């Protein structure tokens, strides 16, 4: 399998007066070419910090402490800003959380898209406009949207404008952070379809970040479950939904409300504070299977079987 992205022992921290906040703390994973790779976990577990680190868009007080990020054999951490800028939009594209609400309200949709094209290519304004319209059509929006202002669009249409913007220059990898969170079910469904289309018809690799496991079940191929700044499990989406291994994944899958279930269980206890992660396994204070070793020793992420990694003492 060819990896488009390899992340190795990445640590992304925030400086604070209480010391470093270890939001993403030694995370390793590979993303295969042409897959939809999901990252899931509770709020505060470090999902967004992780992808901001991977794309090097993290801003102070956040910083990348250590690690390696290989994108198509280029080490991203060693690139200077100009080299990184050349990769952005053409190779790597990022849809930040809530970006549909940061469209410029006084510019027409096409004008804000054109700005991005002109900044990164030698195209003329007219060519850029044509390109913007093509991309809007590719994500299923009518042509008229190009001439509209953001306030004239519904939430789902705005989100699709953002997706169209992210693929303006046909990148190889798109990272979407919570792209369907603030939308209602019917619209969610069509946006998820648009994201799946990026891969299916354009061959774009997608990293899909969402706290909602039901959304992952719809489009993702492989899934990572994060807890307290660490990866606790990696596997195919089928493995994780049908046979979750890590106790946290088990509880998380059981906590998804569904019209097919009458009983929904919560996860007891509260997520820990990133300033002060529990020693040993970070999940042990909430874990129903906790053993003495769990509070002493941190379990490493180990391969259980082909393509399945778990960080839990139960499986060692």
């Amino acid at each position, binding site marked *: 399998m060819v990896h488009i992205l390899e992340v190795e022992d990445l640590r992304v921290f925030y400086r604070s007066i209480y010391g470093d906040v270890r939001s993403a703390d030694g995370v390793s994973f590979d993303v295969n070419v042409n897959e939809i790779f999901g990252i899931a976990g509770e709020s505060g577990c470090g999902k967004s910090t992780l992808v901001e680190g991977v794309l090097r868009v993290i801003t102070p007080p956040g910083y990348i402490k250590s690690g390696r990020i290989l994108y198509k054999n280029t080490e991203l951490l060693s690139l200077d800003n100009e080299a990184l800028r050349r990769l952005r939009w053409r190779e790597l594209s990022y849809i930040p959380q809530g970006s549909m609400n940061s469209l410029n309200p006084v510019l027409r949709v096409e004008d804000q898209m054109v700005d991005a094209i002109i900044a990164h290519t030698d195209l003329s304004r007219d060519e850029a406009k044509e390109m913007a319209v093509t991309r809007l059509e590719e994500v299923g929006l009518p042509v008229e949207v190009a001439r509209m202002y953001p306030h004239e669009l519904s939430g789902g249409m705005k989100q699709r404008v953002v997706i169209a913007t992210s693929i303006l220059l046909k990148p190889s990898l798109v990272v979407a952070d919570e792209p369907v969170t603030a939308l209602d*079910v019917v619209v969610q*469904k069509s946006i998820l379809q648009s994201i799946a289309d990026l891969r299916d018809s354009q061959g774009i690799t997608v990293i899909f970040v969402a706290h909602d*496991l*039901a959304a992952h*079940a719809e489009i993702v191929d492989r899934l990572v479950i994060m807890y307290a700044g660490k990866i606790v499990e990696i596997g195919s989406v089928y493995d994780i939904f049908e046979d979750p291994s890590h106790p946290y994944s088990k509880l998380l899958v059981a906590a998804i409300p569904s019209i097919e279930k009458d009983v*929904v269980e919560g996860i007891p206890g509260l997520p820990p504070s990133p300033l002060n992660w529990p020693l040993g396994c970070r999940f042990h204070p909430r874990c129903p299977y906790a053993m003495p070793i769990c509070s002493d020793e941190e379990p490493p992420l180990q391969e259980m079987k082909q393509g399945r990694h778990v960080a839990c003492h139960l499986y060692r």
Partner: protein
Amino acid sequence: MENPLLELRNATKDFAIGGGLGIRVQRSVRAVDNVSFVLSGEKPTISALVGESGSGKSTIARIILGLEQPTSGEVLVEGRDVRVWLKEERMSYRRNVQAIFQDPYGIYNPFYRVERVFYNVVSKFGLASSRKEADNLIVEAMESMGLRPEDLLGRYPHQLSGGERQRLMLVRILLIKPKIVLADEPLSMIDVSLRSIFLKNLLGLKDRLKMSALYITHDLNVAHYVSDEMMVLCHGRIVEAGQTKAIVKGPLHPYTQGLVSAIPVPDPRRRWKDTVKVQELTFKELLEERHRCIHSHRCPYVMPICKEQVPPLTEVKPGRSVACFLYPEVKEATTLE
């Protein structure tokens, strides 16, 4: 028959758009369009008001709470007009009708410890005669909700998670013991892992206080879990109403059918197969769509009549109403008018 707990009679709310600076307002958006419903309150019931964003759910809640005045129509709680009641005896209305809002961050004053919301309630409604009695009441209420007072009292709002804050709102409800609670998307800022605990607490309150609730949400999974009855709202109009289980099992209105089929089933082996492109209404279209069925734009079964008349919400079988011309009862109701 006694007066129903909550009744909306043809409630309508228009919001003006544009205007200001002395310019005369030309246009308005109808957020709530001729909505009528009754919550009898004979036995404790949770009714879900379900709709997409922008469907007018929150506006209805704000009208019931008196935070917004309806452009026309009436809101009655126990047979009394809410506007009049609020004017005459504001506190007594608040004692009976309480709310839990979407944002558990905005409720607390960040400068005060969290228990202040409880002491305020105790003194405003005269629930205890001494500080000691108040303390006992609060501690007891928290413990009965499975919260540990020693962990939470004395802390500042920023030290609590969204889930804890929303559960403290339920403790507040338990102290006040209102007859009806309006819960407006109370889960939207709580993590998945903590949601079911909140919902269980809410269901517990319903049984304990014999209290009814109007639960406003866009999430059909949650509505199905928590509610007994359901009303489906589409662009300000109720399109279907009935027992929650029956609606989810067999939705009658094409809009509800779309909603139900879009419920994400958390199973990667059953992904959405159909690629029905959902057509969303733009703002401009919404302004022009009022004289016809609000769903006719994206309805797969659209007929000529749908574009000419507004289908009235009509009972098609006991306890089940729908506003769609596909059902002969609805057509009959129109010709009678």
